[in-house]
């Protein structure tokens, strides 16, 4: 079935006048009478259905990956624990990393919420290529199943670490179906990501509403545009590397094997040429989410809109020149080049942190769960970011490489992203479902998650500086190592409990629904102009778009016009002064 979609031409959402804030208004205008139930799930090309599919699947993957983490941390409570065998431990940390990176953080960000939000934020009826979008989801789902299938084959899943370094991945060192399933899973999810990237860029370039110039797009959409470009630059490289790896394992090529003239180090170059831009592919969407949330709960426009955009573009530009900082200790990379580029990338990231703080500065802060999660993201990302600057310095990296310091740095970053993910869920859940999540449960979840994260990561930095290597199932009976490891495990447990609280919150919110209304937060973007959840093809009307927050402008016609970076009290005071 194909529908010809016309753009809405009115700017009145209903007959009730301009304000649609908190009115509990539920519109079923334009509802689509298509298939329902399983058939709807199988055949829908609606970006909202696909976005929710992605979001739910990725959260399920987070729970699975988190369960692996809990087993890992249980093993490390005691130096000589025998909870799992050494090989099972290798499998667990491989699958924990793989599931979390390939199947949770990335797909949640660049395919889950992005799928749902980008068309809404630019005023489009759908993604540019809806059927390609649906194919992306099916490739992601089947890729996820392929990865998890490893647990059900003889020999178990892949056990060579989520980075799959050669020669650990060779047919001799990693025989069996588990390694091939890992490769196949990444091929499927890799193509899924590439198709999502194409869709994001085409949607943003071609389907924006009239007046929605590039520099009026919400920062989340800007970040998704840049993420889409980075996906197209990085993911084909990984997919090509995986095909080469498969050929090495099965067709007798020697691309990554010394026998026959191959170069194992080439895998690291290929992997990290994908892998470091991937860090920004993971991070930029969450940067975008908190940049949407902080202004709303500070009651101010974003501080430094253009600075945010240029910082994002600079991060994208630099991100392709930092890959070998993961390879400093190989002794075979250009240390000054990669060190300089890696240190430089701290500048645009610092600008973002500065602008988030600048947005909150002098604002009327409202500490909703979404805002708490966003602030938790900023604080935790700061810790992860600063320790990343240490690691960009080769002498410091030589000392800490492959220790728990690196693990702690990385987990500060990804746990910050997880807080960003929950900030996004709490903020946009009302739009997706028409119901509010419970704030009390949400705040309890936030504090457990935030405290758990710090209790988990901070001892990791210390035990890393004490010299504990990563990927050890057992470790020397050193009391200080054991104590620090036990604290880490307590932190991991708190994080696990916080996830359960989220599940409880979703159940409670469905059992005792609180109707959200179209715009419960008095927010800024076009997604808040339509009903919650939006009708098929999204909009029956659109407001005039004259700034980066058209819905706020529409709902506050008497508010003074604010330039980028001006906060409300100062502008209001200036307006009063002029009148006087």
């Amino acid at each position, binding site marked *: 079935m194909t529908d010809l979609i016309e753009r809405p031409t009115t700017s009145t959402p209903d007959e009730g006048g301009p304000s649609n804030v908190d009115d509990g208004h539920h519109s079923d205008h334009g509802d689509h009478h298509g*298939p329902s139930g399983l058939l709807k799930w199988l055949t829908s090309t609606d970006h909202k259905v696909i976005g929710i599919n992605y979001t739910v699947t990725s959260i399920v993957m987070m729970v699975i990956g988190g369960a692996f983490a809990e087993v890992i941390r249980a093993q490390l409570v005691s130096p000589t624990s025998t909870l799992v065998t050494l090989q099972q431990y290798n499998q667990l940390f491989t699958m924990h990393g793989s599931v979390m990176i390939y199947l949770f953080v990335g797909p949640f960000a660049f395919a889950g919420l992005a799928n749902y939000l980008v068309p809404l934020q630019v005023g489009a009826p759908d993604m540019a290529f809806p059927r390609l979008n649906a194919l992306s989801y099916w490739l992601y789902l089947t890729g996820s199943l392929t990865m998890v299938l490893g647990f059900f084959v003889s020999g178990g899943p892949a056990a060579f670490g989520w980075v799959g370094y050669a020669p650990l991945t060779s047919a001799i060192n990693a025989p069996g179906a588990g390694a091939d399933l890992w490769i196949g899973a990444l091929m499927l999810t890799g193509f899924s990501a590439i198709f999502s990237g194409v869709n994001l860029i085409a949607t943003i370039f071609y389907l924006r509403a009239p007046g929605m110039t590039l520099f009026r797009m919400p920062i989340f959409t800007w970040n998704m545009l840049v993420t889409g470009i980075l996906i197209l630059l990085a993911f084909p490289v990984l997919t090509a590397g995986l095909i080469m790896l498969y050929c090495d394992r099965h067709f007798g090529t020697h691309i990554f094997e010394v026998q026959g003239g191959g170069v194992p180090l080439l895998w690291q170059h290929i992997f990290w040429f994908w892998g470091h831009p991937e860090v920004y592919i993971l991070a930029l969407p969450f940067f975008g989410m908190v940049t949407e949330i902080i202004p709303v709960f500070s009651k101010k426009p974003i501080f430094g809109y253009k600075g945010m955009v240029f910082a994002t573009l600079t991060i994208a530009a630099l991100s392709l020149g930092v890959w070998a900082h993961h390879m400093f200790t190989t002794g075979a990379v250009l240390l000054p080049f990669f060190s300089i580029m890696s240190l430089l990338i701290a500048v645009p990231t610092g600008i973002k942190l500065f602008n988030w703080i600048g947005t909150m500065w002098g604002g009327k802060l409202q500490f909703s769960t979404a805002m708490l999660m966003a602030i938790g993201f900023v604080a935790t990302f700061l810790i992860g970011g600063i320790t990343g600057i240490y690691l960009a310095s080769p002498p410091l990296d030589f000392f800490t490489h492959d220790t728990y310091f690196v693990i702690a740095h990385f987990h500060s970053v990804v746990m910050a992203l997880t807080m960003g993910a929950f900030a996004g869920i709490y903020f946009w859940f009302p739009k997706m479902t028409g119901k509010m999540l419970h704030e009390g449960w949400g705040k309890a979840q936030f504090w457990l998650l935030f405290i758990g994260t710090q209790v988990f990561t901070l001892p990791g930095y210390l035990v890393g500086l004490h010299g504990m290597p990563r990927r050890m199932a057992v470790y020397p009976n050193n009391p200080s190592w054991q104590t620090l490891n036990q604290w880490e495990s307590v932190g991991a447990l708190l994080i696990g409990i916080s996830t359960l609280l989220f599940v409880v919150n979703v159940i409670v919110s469905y059992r005792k629904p609180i109707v959200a209304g179209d715009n419960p937060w008095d927010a800024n973007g076009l997604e808040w102009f339509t009903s919650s959840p939006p009708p098929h093809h999204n909009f029956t009307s659109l407001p005039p778009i004259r700034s980066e927050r058209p819905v706020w402008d529409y709902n506050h016609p008497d508010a003074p016009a604010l330039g980028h970076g001006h906060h409300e009290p100062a502008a209001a005071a200036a307006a009063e002064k002029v009148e006087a």
Partner: protein
Amino acid sequence: MLKQESIILLFLGFFFGMMGAVYWFWGHEDGGGVMLLGALFLGLLPGTYYFWWFRRSGGNRPEDRSDASIADGAGVVDAFPSTSIWPFVLGMGCFSVVLALVFGTWLAVPGVALILSALIGATAESRRGGTV
């Protein structure tokens, strides 16, 4: 039309080219140099296309004009499929082909069959819609 979009891609392409040149002559490492060359083209090719398209069209899309009203964009946006089974069929075909890489080539037979049927089905579906 598409002026800023093309500038973003061209800027990224030129930056990758510059970075690639420095890396190539300083690093003497082929893999990274080749990948940065690829990145240069990935910026320049679409960037140049969009720039050419902008010059040709004159830059008058309502979404590029800051003073455009919603009514300026009135009319059909495009044809959008409302439902389609073929992405699912194609996805299952790809799944089967990947499993064939692991468990045996016989799995490629249903995989390729599903992929071909999806290609035919999706094309026919587009033609029936009459708009794509």
